[in-house]
């Protein structure tokens, strides 16, 4: 998963906030930086695989730091920020869209955390705010000294079009209240997804990284919203060559969970406890096979062994499109049965998994003469072959037959 942090650099962010009962005072920007550091520290401990990018915005928008896992680099960069002009939301959404697309294409879920002092309650509800072009959501942390007037005008903190939500720190603003809200955001957003990987009676507790999202798709007659259940049940295996390249919604690492029943147990002990997940990975890798698993009642995925480079290989869950026809060339997934049942018809040496009932137009000789050239070419061909009649008689008949 990836995260974009957007920091408001409008001039108003320079305002000083006096902390009660002390002589200390902080600018809003300092508080923002503090919040980002809290977030990065949380990630460093709990979600080391997270990529983070930082953009700064005012009336224009700049990419301060592209996606990286080097959180210290980000921390050093956000200490030196300069202010300019006033807050403006549309360009930042546009920039983030471009940034995410050029880096990840559109297959990666991306969280956007925006820190601003502008009137985000109203500003982000304006019609010129376009939704993100990638899966993910916007979390806005407004830094305001007083409870916003606008806040009362809108009954919910949810932003329209499923853009995301606003979560404000407790007042008065202090470094600790800001830290608290960022911790809350981090805890809510970066939850490891726990699931049980099951194959018959064998099972293993696993984490899915990045966490799978629910998926909403509009079919012709219904809107389907699918959520992954916490049990991934293997229903059988396939040769990898038969699976080929189905469309994948997302990909997730399947990492076995540590066994945490005894506090004294070290990593070493955990590493020495056999895990079904590791066995499955080993076997899939050696046999070059794919396990088909059911994610929820109408949603399926594939488990494969995947290697980023030669050394480190891992078990990966490939989430297919919801529905039972995610791999069209295998037919309805519900119609896949374990082979022993099929052995009854062992004489049937059908290599094609399913036969398409009717051929596509390009697979049969169909004629379309809409364009003049097509008709001319066909007639020319007949004439040409008619002229060389004795030799070309076979192909002449072939052409005539086709017509």
């Amino acid at each position, binding site marked *: 998963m990836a995260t974009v942090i957007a920091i408001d650099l409008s001039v108003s962010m320079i305002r000083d906030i006096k902390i009660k009962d002390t002589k200390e005072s902080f600018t809003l920007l300092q508080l923002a930086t503090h919040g980002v550091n809290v977030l990065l520290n949380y990630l460093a401990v709990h979600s080391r695989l997270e990529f983070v990018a930082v953009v700064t915005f005012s009336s224009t928008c700049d990419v301060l730091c592209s996606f990286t896992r080097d959180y210290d680099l980000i921390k050093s960069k956000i200490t030196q920020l300069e202010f300019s002009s006033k807050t403006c939301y549309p360009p930042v959404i546009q920039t983030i869209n471009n940034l995410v697309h050029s880096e990840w294409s559109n297959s990666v879920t991306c969280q956007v955390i925006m820190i601003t002092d502008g009137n985000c309650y109203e500003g982000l509800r304006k019609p010129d705010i376009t939704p993100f072009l990638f899966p993910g959501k916007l979390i806005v942390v407004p830094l305001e000294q007083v409870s916003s007037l606008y806040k009362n005008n809108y009954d919910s903190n949810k932003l329209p079009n499923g853009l995301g939500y606003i979560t404000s720190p407790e007042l008065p603003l202090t470094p600790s209240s800001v830290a608290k809200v960022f911790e809350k955001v981090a805890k809510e957003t970066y939850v490891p997804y726990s699931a049980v990987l099951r194959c018959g009676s064998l099972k293993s507790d696993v984490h899915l990284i990045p966490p799978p999202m629910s998926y909403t798709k509009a079919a012709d*007659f219904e809107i389907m919203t699918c959520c992954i259940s916490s049990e991934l049940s293997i229903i059988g295996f396939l040769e990898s060559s038969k699976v080929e390249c189905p469309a994948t919604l997302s990909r997730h690492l399947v990492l076995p969970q540590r066994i945490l029943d005894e506090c004294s147990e070290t990593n070493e002990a955990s590493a020495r406890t056999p895990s079904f997940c590791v066995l499955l990975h080993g*076997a899939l890798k050696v*046999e070059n096979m794919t396990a088909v698993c059911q994610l929820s009642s109408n949603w399926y995925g594939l488990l494969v062994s995947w290697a980023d480079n030669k050394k*480190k290989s891992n078990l990966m869950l490939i989430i297919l499109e919801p529905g039972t026809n995610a791999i069209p060339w295998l037919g309805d997934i519900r119609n896949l049965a374990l082979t022993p049942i*099929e052995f009854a018809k062992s004489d049937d040496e059908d290599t094609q998994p399913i036969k398409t009932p009717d051929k596509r137009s390009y697979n049969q000789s169909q004629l*379309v003469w809409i364009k003049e050239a097509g008709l001319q*070419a066909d007639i020319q061909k007949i004439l040409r072959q008619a002229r060389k009649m004795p030799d070309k008689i076979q192909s002449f008949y072939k052409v005539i037959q086709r017509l």
Partner: protein
Amino acid sequence: MSLIDQLFPANHKTTFVVDHTPYFGLASNSHIKMDFTKRPSGGIPPPPIFKSMWTCSIEAVLEYCRIVWDLFPEGKLIRVISSDMQSRNLNNWSSSQQNVNYMLHHLSSLGPPAKLVPNPNRDYSVVYGFRTAAEAMIECTTAQMDQGAKKNNIEVQNKCRTIIITSARDNPSIDNLMSMFHNEMTKSNKYVSQPSSMHIHHCHLVIINTYPDSITCEVTDRPPHSISPILDLEVHSIPASKIGIKISNLLLKHYNLASTTVTGIPMKEEQNASSSANYDVEIYHAATAHTTILNANVADAKAVVAKKEGADYETIKLKWCTPRANNNLPDIHSCTTLHRITPVDINSRPSACLITFLLNGRSVLLEMIKQGGGKSMSHVLKSYNGEIYIHTVSSGRTVLEDPPAISEGPGGKVTQYRVADFGIFMRLNLLEPSKKKQAEDKNYIDEAKECLKKQTAYWPLITTSTIIFHLKRYTEPMLTFMVKDNMSDQELIHCKQCVYALVAAESRNEHFITPIANPRKILKREDQYKSMWAELEAFLKSNLHTENHCKVLQCYFECRGKLDEEKIIEKTLMRFKKSLADRPSVIRATTDSPMSPPLTQQTGIKHNIAHKAVDVDPNSVMYLKIVQDQENRRVNPSRPQFAGRLKSIQKRNGNLFAKLYQHIDEDTDTTSVK
């Protein structure tokens, strides 16, 4: 567009009403050049040839159908209605009639428009088709009926599209047609009878006004606009020769399609096979295949988008990338979308070449040339089962970059996983599309899960925690038979023999060779047997699926002299017998005596295999393989085996166990017959 707007698209039901009046029999006056012969100059040129307006229209309609049905084999339905003195349906909504060949067949019986014969009783008009179209629209499709039956929270909306191809004099007569159509719709809506028909909630009416190329027409184009809550109107006026292009433009909008032009396909020239030139082929597919590249970078997107010549839509130009070997395909992870494609110009030679190339199983990578001159692979064309798909390849980085290896995580340091055994397990559980039609209440997925559960009821993960799986010499085929759903009486005998074999081995004090967990702690022989028996007991206990399964455990207890345990298993057996009444399959297995002759269906080939098996020492690996194979290949695994053959196994091989325990074997045999 929000998701709710995408529900109930109008393109689910499209109706064409095509004018079949004598006027449409007139020539389109678009001259088709047919002068191919190199006749001496001054000769008389052949008379010009014209297509009739009817031909132009119906060709365009068929092309529309062809593309839609190629791309959406299900769920996008089209009907064609012709109208002259009466209206005629060329097909209905049923899926068997939703294909081009069916339509062509019916068109040939319809024939060209009649010559104009004045008929005082009845006029020729396109209007007769309107009622038929309205009737077609209220008729429910199978998908609509299924959804209606489901009773979702959202009521099914019957939205449709009607395309009328006709010829009108001027704008008022178009309005006239529209209002007549509207009337027919409201009239039909009154006669709706559930559940086979349904109110028309909305209709998108497209009127294509066409005329011979030689004349001008007073009808003007009108963009889509709302006429009434249930009707939107759009008018296009176009000469007959251009109707094909117009219709394919509309098609892209109606089905949200996009066009891709594969450029630079190297091909031998038709006339001169020695030289090769580069060709372009245009294909249509769902527009979402382009989302990735259009969103990525505005400048890059502009570089590939081009206006299609002679049409008012855009096509994206992607360069053919000559495949070096077939293994340079991107791996399965990077494909994000998948859509069917169809060539635009199906009969052109370049299209045909590309299609043949793909249908022969090769794949084509498509490159996007970026503005700066850089390239990135963005799509793959590949065919499966005779259907060609375009895959979008994710070109971005992956968030899974530099992941921790699984060997670093929990369980990663363990080295004695039974990987090879799990490999065999996977091969035994391959999924295959079933050719049998699925019964309503039966579910292969649940069946498969159940089957896997039985096979893994006892399955140690690592080699050092099992002994019986290393003693396949003794324990097979018992290990295979025990995890199966059913156990035939013959399989039961095999299993029992395995138990006896182990008893015999113990009495001979044979040493088991098993992998050792800790080299300093070599098990003593007695301990080894002790833990083996314990494991075997655990294995048998976790696989008590049927009566015969229990009998194996019973046999084990007999051999081990555990009498009190035997009583418990006795109870389990009683329970199985009680439940027999509702399980006819088990009854058959138990009532059929093992002495009964083999069923007549058993083929000669299978006899041979069985006899071969008999000659081999049952302890050898070969024998196990054959028995396994044979079991797998059998038509009905629960059928009792020919009894005489079973006896011969025991007699022929001079194995100790057969001699020693023959009496026990015979005892149990007779009890099971009773």
